[in-house]
């Protein structure tokens, strides 16, 4: 009974937003690139590099907001690799993204050694000022993430720009016939995704913590990917899924169960995603042209 009470207590529900923040940010980014037809399993690496860039920028200038800017640019730079190699040169998106994840892991540890002379945890850097809402302490990026959800929805579903993105993801050659520059839109969508994943990284390193720890993204980029699929490639769906997954993480950390090991609760997001993807409860259907490079004049 006690456990049940804890599970649905208001503080736990409120704190889920903190755990959900990086998932919301990266999943929104994922919605953009996947809707344009580019698969992005490099969210993890972009988030990791963003986390490092945030600590570096914050420590360098003493201003955590500059750190956020660094994270944004850091995510962008990594996204640029994916965009150039996969959109411009049309190399395989999965292969290159795998490379980016390995690259991010190696590069961040290398940079820690070169810049700070350590390899596990970076020196401390100023963190973002906390904001109190309903008696809970949040960092501002949580509210940025929540605010971006309706923005992403509006852009994707209520602007001509968003319509073009969606049409490219479904039928690039038809979009091309209408004079839409397919690869330009894809390029921009990948960059948006990188910037948002970078922000998610900043949340981890200077939002909830005040240092960079090696491999600190711990698979959150992949959970964000799962949230995006669970939310059926829709900003609001992705937001809901990210909240659910954040809640699962909060439960597994803060509630102790007598019979169910917390490790298994943390596996729930992954299991749910597989179930939804397989269509056991409400099939998730990806954009049609996902993962395929677009060559002009071929179909």
């Amino acid at each position, binding site marked *: 009974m006690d456990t049940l009470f804890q599970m649905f207590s208001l503080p736990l529900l409120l704190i889920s937003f903190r755990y959900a923040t990086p998932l919301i940010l990266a999943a929104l980014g994922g919605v953009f690139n996947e809707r344009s037809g580019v*698969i992005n*399993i490099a969210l993890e690496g972009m988030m990791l590099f963003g986390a490092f860039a945030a600590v570096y920028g914050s420590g360098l200038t003493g201003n955590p907001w500059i750190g956020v800017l660094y994270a944004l640019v850091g995510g962008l730079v990594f996204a640029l*690799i994916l965009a150039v*190699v996969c959109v411009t*040169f*049309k*190399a*395989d998106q*999965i*292969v*290159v993204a*795998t*490379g*980016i*994840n*390995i*690259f991010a*892991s*190696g*590069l961040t*540890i*290398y940079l820690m*050694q*070169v810049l700070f002379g350590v*390899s596990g945890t970076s020196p401390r850097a100023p963190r973002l000022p906390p904001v109190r809402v309903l008696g809970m302490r949040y960092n501002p990026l949580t509210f940025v993430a929540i605010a971006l959800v309706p923005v992403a929805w509006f852009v994707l579903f209520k602007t001509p720009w968003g319509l073009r993105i969606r049409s490219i993801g479904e039928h690039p050659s038809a979009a091309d016939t209408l004079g839409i520059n397919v690869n330009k839109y894809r390029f921009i969508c990948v960059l948006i995704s990188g910037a948002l994943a970078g922000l998610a990284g900043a949340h981890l390193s200077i939002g909830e913590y005040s240092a960079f720890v090696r491999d600190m993204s711990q*698979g959150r980029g*992949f*959970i964000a*990917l*799962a949230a995006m*699929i669970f939310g059926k490639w829709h900003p609001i769906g992705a937001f809901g899924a990210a909240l659910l997954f954040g809640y699962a993480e909060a439960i597994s950390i803060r509630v102790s169960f007598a019979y169910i*090991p917390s*490790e*298994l609760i*943390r*596996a729930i997001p*992954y*299991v749910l*995603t*597989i179930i939804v*993807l*397989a*269509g*056991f409860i409400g099939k998730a259907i*990806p954009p049609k042209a996902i993962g395929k490079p677009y060559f002009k004049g071929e179909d």
Partner: protein
Amino acid sequence: MSDLQTTKTDTGSKFINLLIELGFALFSILVALLVGTVFILLAGESPLDAYHALYIGSIGSWREFLNTLWRATPLIFTGFALALPFKAGLFNIGGEGQLLVGGFAAGFVGFYFTGLPSIIHVPLAILAAMAAGAIWGLIPGLLKAYKGAHEVITTIMLNYIAIQLTIRYGIDRFRTGGRQALPTIEESARLVRFVDMAEMPIIGQIPLIDVFALPGLRLHLNFILALISAAVLWYLLFKTTVGYEIRAVGFNSSAAEYGGISSSKTIILSMVIAGALAGLAGAGEALGTHHTFMSGMDADLGFTGIAVALLGRNHPFGIVLAGILFGGLTQGGLEMQFVGIPSEIVTIIQALVIFFVAGLQMLKWFLLKRREKGETE
């Protein structure tokens, strides 16, 4: 471009194709090493010293060369685990998870059963690992074949489910000490190490076997299993009906279906075999390298295997060579660490190899395209 086409061409052009492939692979590595010098210079070190250390540490001596083979072993297996489904048109990102469940199964059988003779205990542990890996490959295979669920996503999810089940829950449930590991496996479940061979009853009689009696040599039996697997895989892919079906489905699944090949059966089969092979990588790490299943044992071997398969052009023998190359980079990286150069440069170089191989593939494609265009005009 495809295997189905190359089988028709004569041996002469096949040989030239092979040389071109090899040339592209070597060129990508050279470019990656060249770009790697930038990172070495930025760290304030001399690239010459760094690469000299890399050379000394990987193939500078007989022992280091053998240890390079030891490092290569799991990578060769995870490379196979990507390559086989790739031939059937699938992207198995799940090598990591398949390796973990395999390693856990082997580690579990290794410590749980006591009093078994080696001749039973070792095969039992290896079979358990292969079965666990095969199940971890079967799930995404079934979901792909019958539900159309994208295997990239399902295998990624299964990787994380495997982490939670084995490294987190499994170890917590059975561990006895403070270490994040299962109890150490029984003596009888250990894979034979090359260093011990000279003192073994029958094998010890083989002439020159004492070349392996080197202190600090960590190579074990799993490398031999990797070579055998390479041969079996080559035979399966290029000399059997099953292999032909796998390649046909990868080449054009609807045409294959029209020709009477069941693409769902082929997809499932390729994923099951891939899972079992990745499970073998885990078995080798648990039974031969660490003598336990422990946290951090996977060390991204599954993901690096993707790079190995890519560099090895998804060919069993190419993967063995690429695996040895990547094993050498890891092994040599330790020597770099000793002389004070960040060993993460090796990880960076490995990632660069992926970028350049993927990029050059496209360059080749563009050149081919242009030549075709030139011929038709």
